[in-house]
Structures are given as structure tokens and as C-alpha cells.
């Protein structure tokens, strides 16, 4: 027998993998720059990252119809992965507009920040485009380990280290649970490919259900679903604020991507178990998140709890395992990533003014001292609450419609209760900013780049709410494609 027949290895199609390669090379370049220069100029690091990410983004946008599998079935590029990756890269570029001033004021982001950012972005991009448990495991760890370090980057601040350590321990627990789930799935089907595992039909399904429960609970800890949410408010509050924004947007898209890949593959035989488990988790999550956010005095922590509540709404959509549910969930995830990021980025700018502590009192009469920031923050908050012209209303209505279509009335009604409760804390903040008369201390001015990015995000929140078809035309075929797998 010829040696060539014995070793049947084909060369992987690297054309599908180019955006990731560009991000990886950007990370390595930043790493080398950090090694070469003793004090890396932040402007240089930011320009290198922006150039790298823009190249990756342009490649993705111009080759949006690229489809196929490479690396022997480990890596899948389809419209789902391209869509999520476009959003992740865009949000990362927007984030970089805010880091320079924050670093100048807080002296907290070092050279590590830039390459860890690109490594976690790479992990998120791979996570959005794989069905293989091995690759999902590695990408999950790439994102998480970068996040642990990024959370701890605030120099000399104990809360930052505390949040990072809690995140690390619960993240380690999550990864162990998820990989034990992989063990059970491996016993069940003898393969690590999720498509193969979930289409495999054995008479005894107990190992499949056990494995899926472990795997999903592992991911649920990473997402911050309620019985396992303890790390999330601490890590979000302790982390430097631009990084909180990053974790709540790009991190959320990345950690939800494997769940959304599993969701269309749910079979008829364990559909009821899926609905019950995911639906219950969703209800507990958004009710708990909204009620606890009501009593928070710290606005950053309040937004962290609102992020938990929004994970709950997304999970409510996930529990409806049909195409309509998936469309609503993808729209919700992408729109939330913009809203959540905008909320935290406003805080990142406001923190630059002297003795600002993110307390509720600090927001008294913000309209008079810094009208622009007040308006942007109000749009973000109203969108998080779900007031009609903004996208927040649309996505909540979509989730509710899909719940009604799936006959999950109990989840839908409790979701309305949750949204009603959330009115309390979002509107209180808006009222404080606009109705209070007292003039607060001088507020730091946002730079031109920051203004432009915030306007862009706020306008996109309005546009996505008024003209949903812009995004829906991409989402709709994507979710139908995922259901044909």
C-alpha cells in the first residue's frame, strides 16, 4: 500500500479561516511590540489593533457568502458564524476608541490589555464557528483565561482582584462541568462532534441527557444564569469599566454561540426535558436579576444585574426550540450586545470626572452638566427597558411572540412581570438625570472619537428598532440553515 493512501491528510482550506488568522497575527504583533518596547505607546498599540481588526472585518464583509468546513470538520464557516464575528469585531473596534482616555486617567490598562483583547476576540470567533466539543473547550478557555487577567488589570485595586478570583474559581468549575458533559456525550455516541452526537439514535438516551445537562450547566455558569451567577456582579464591578463593557457584549455573544448551535439540534425525544430545564432557568434568571437590580445603589453593579436579567430573556427564547425562537434569540443577542456595551461605556467616560463613584446620587441632574452623555445614557437605558422606538421593545416583543408560538405561556407571562419590575430601576435613573435640578461637579468631556462612537451606537439602537429588516434579512436564512443541519 502506498504511504499516501495510508495517511489521508488533506491540506486545510485556509481561506475560510483568514479572519481568525488576521486577528491571531495582530495579537502576536502586539505581543512582540510589548516585548520590544519597554513602555509601549498606547497610540501605537491601538492603531495596530484597529488596522488588524479592520482588515479582518473587511475580509469578512467582502466574503460574507463564504461557506464550508475546514480542519477536518473541526471548524465550520456558515452565515451564523460570519454574522456573529462581524458584530464581535465591530464592537471590539468601538471599544478601542474608549481605552486611551480611560488608561490616561486610571493608569490601569497596560500593554497586556491589547493582546489579551485580541486573543479573547479570537477565542470568541472560534467559539461562534465550531460544532466540535474539543474546539469549543479550547476556545472557551481562550476567552475565559483572557477575561480573568483582563478583570484583574486595575492596579492596586482590591475589588478588581477579588472579582477576578471569584470569576476564576467559578470559571474553572464551569469548564470542569462542561468537559464532564463532553465525557458523557462521548460515551453516548463515540464522537465529539455535536451534530453527530445529537443526531445519534440510541435506545437509551440517559447519557445524552446527562451529558447535555452538564454541558449546558457549564456554559450557564459562564453566561451568568442565576443559580450560578455569583461571580458575575463582582467581576463586572471590579473590572476596569471598558473591560466590563467588553465582557457584557462580546463575551456574551461568544458564550451564547455554542448554546445556539445546540438549540436547533434538540430532538423530539427530549424536547420536553429541554423546555422544562431551560425555561425554568430562564424564569429564575430574569426574575432574580430584575428584583436584585432594584435595590442596588451602585450603577455599575445595577447594570451587571440587568445583564443577568437579559441573559434570562435570551434563555427564554432558547427554550423554544424552533426556528422562530432562534431568529428572535439571535436578534436579541446582537441588539443586546450594543445596548449593554453602550451602557457600560457611558460609565467608562463619566468615571473620568473627579471623585465619581458610580453611585445613584452622582447622576443627579446630569442633563445640566453634561447633556450629551445624559441623552446617550437615556437612550441606552430606555432601550434596555424596551420603550417602543428603540430596539429594546422589538426584541422583547419578538421573544414574547416566539414564546406564544411555542405555547410557553408561563414563561411569557413571567417575562412581562420581569420587564415590569425592571421599569423601576431604569426609569429611576432617567428621572434622576433629567428631573433633578441640583448641579453636580464638573464632568469629564468625551473626546471626538468617543462622541462619534456613542452617537453611532445610539443611532444604531434606534435604526434597528425602526427598520428591523436590515438585520432580519440576514438572521432569518441563518436560523433556517441551522435547523437544516
Amino acid at each position, binding site marked *: 500500500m502506498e504511504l499516501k493512501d495510508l495517511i489521508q491528510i488533506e491540506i486545510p482550506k485556509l481561506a475560510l479561516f483568514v479572519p481568525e488568522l488576521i486577528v491571531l497575527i495582530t495579537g502576536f504583533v502586539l505581543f512582540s511590540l510589548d516585548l520590544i518596547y519597554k513602555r509601549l505607546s498606547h497610540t501605537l498599540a491601538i492603531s495596530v489593533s484597529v488596522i488588524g481588526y479592520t482588515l479582518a472585518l473587511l475580509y469578512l464583509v467582502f466574503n460574507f457568502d463564504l461557506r464550508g468546513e475546514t480542519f477536518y470538520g473541526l471548524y465550520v464557516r456558515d452565515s451564523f458564524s460570519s454574522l456573529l464575528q462581524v458584530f464581535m469585531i465591530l464592537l471590539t473596534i468601538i471599544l478601542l476608541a474608549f481605552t486611551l482616555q480611560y488608561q490616561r486617567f486610571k493608569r490601569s490598562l497596560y500593554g497586556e490589555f491589547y493582546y489579551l483583547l485580541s486573543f479573547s476576540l479570537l477565542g470568541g470567533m472560534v467559539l461562534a464557528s465550531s460544532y466540535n466539543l474539543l474546539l469549543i473547550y*479550547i476556545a472557551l478557555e481562550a476567552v*475565559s483565561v483572557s477575561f480573568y487577567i483582563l478583570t484583574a488589570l486595575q492596579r492596586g485595586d482590591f475589588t478588581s482582584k477579588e472579582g477576578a*478570583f471569584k470569576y476564576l474559581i467559578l470559571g474553572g468549575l464551569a469548564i470542569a462541568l462542561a468537559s464532564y458533559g463532553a465525557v458523557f456525550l462521548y460515551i453516548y455516541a463515540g464522537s465529539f462532534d455535536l451534530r453527530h452526537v445529537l443526531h445519534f439514535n440510541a435506545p437509551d438516551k440517559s447519557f445524552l441527557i446527562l451529558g447535555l445537562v452538564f454541558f449546558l450547566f457549564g456554559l450557564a455558569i459562564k453566561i451568568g444564569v442565576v443559580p450560578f451567577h455569583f461571580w458575575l456582579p463582582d467581576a463586572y464591578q471590579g473590572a476596569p469599566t471598558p473591560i466590563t463593557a467588553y465582557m457584557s457584549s462580546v463575551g456574551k455573544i461568544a458564550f451564547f454561540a455554542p448554546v445556539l448551535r445546540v438549540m436547533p439540534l434538540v430532538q423530539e425525544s427530549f424536547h420536553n426535558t429541554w423546555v422544562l430545564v431551560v425555561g425554568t432557568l430562564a424564569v429564575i434568571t430574569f426574575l432574580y436579576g430584575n428584583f436584585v437590580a432594584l435595590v442596588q445603589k451602585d450603577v455599575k453593579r445595577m447594570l451587571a444585574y440587568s445583564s443577568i436579567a437579559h441573559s434570562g430573556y435570551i434563555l427564554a427564547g432558547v427554550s423554544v426550540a424552533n426556528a422562530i425562537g432562534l431568529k428572535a434569540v439571535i436578534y436579541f443577542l446582537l441588539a443586546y450586545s450594543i445596548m449593554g456595551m453602550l451602557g457600560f461605556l457611558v460609565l467608562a467616560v463619566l468615571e473620568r470626572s473627579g471623585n465619581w463613584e458610580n453611585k445613584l446620587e452622582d447622576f443627579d441632574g446630569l442633563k445640566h452638566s453634561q447633556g450629551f452623555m445624559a441623552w446617550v445614557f437615556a437612550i441606552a437605558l430606555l432601550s434596555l427597558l424596551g420603550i417602543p422606538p428603540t430596539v429594546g421593545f422589538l426584541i422583547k416583543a419578538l421573544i414574547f411572540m416566539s414564546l406564544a408560538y411555542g405555547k410557553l405561556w408561563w414563561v411569557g407571562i413571567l417575562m412581562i412581570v420581569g420587564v415590569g419590575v425592571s421599569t423601576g430601576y431604569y426609569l429611576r435613573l432617567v428621572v434622576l438625570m433629567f428631573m433633578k435640578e441640583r448641579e453636580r461637579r464638573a464632568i469629564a468631556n468625551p473626546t471626538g472619537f468617543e462622541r462619534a462612537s456613542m452617537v453611532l451606537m445610539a443611532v444604531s439602537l434606534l435604526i434597528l428598532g425602526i427598520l428591523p429588516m436590515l438585520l432580519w434579512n440576514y438572521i432569518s436564512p441563518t436560523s433556517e440553515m441551522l435547523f437544516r443541519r
Partner: protein
Amino acid sequence: MKIEIAYTLISIFLFLSGLFGVIIRKNLITLLVSTELMLNGVNLGLVSMDKMVGGVEGQVFALFVLTVAAAEVAVGLGLVVAIFRLRGYESSSEITQLRD
């Protein structure tokens, strides 16, 4: 008893003892060791399942788990050192500055 079953039971025992360690213990180093114990349980499970199923993918997975766990524990120990520097060893197990 078949040897694979015995190894699987040991793996479950390792995993559960790590889980209880994470839930019960307060000491920072012990917490880190507990998460590593869970991952080692996963490794043993993967390798013994390979024997049962007759493949090699589980062993490849186990190699990756070993490598990545090393990276994670390096970050964890770095954080522990940072916490000890800021707080001192004695009071380090009461890290409850952030709470509702």
C-alpha cells in the same frame, strides 16, 4: 469488576471531591487545587471512556485539558500572589469586599 468501570468510578469520585472542595473550602490555594482536581477527574474519565469506546479522541482531549489547566492555574496563582500582597496571608480567605 471490569477495570474500565473501576477507573470511571475513581474519576467520578475525583470530580465530586473537587466539587465539594470548591463549595465548602475557604482557603484560596485549596480552592484552586479543587478546580484542578475536578479537571483531573475529567481526564481520567476521558481516558477510561476511550478504552471502553475504542477510540483515541478522548486521549487527545485529555492532553488538551492538561495543557489548558496548567495555563489556568498559572493565572490563578498569579492572582493569589496579588491578593496576598494587597491583604496579607491571614485575612486573604475573607475576600468579601464586594457584596450586595
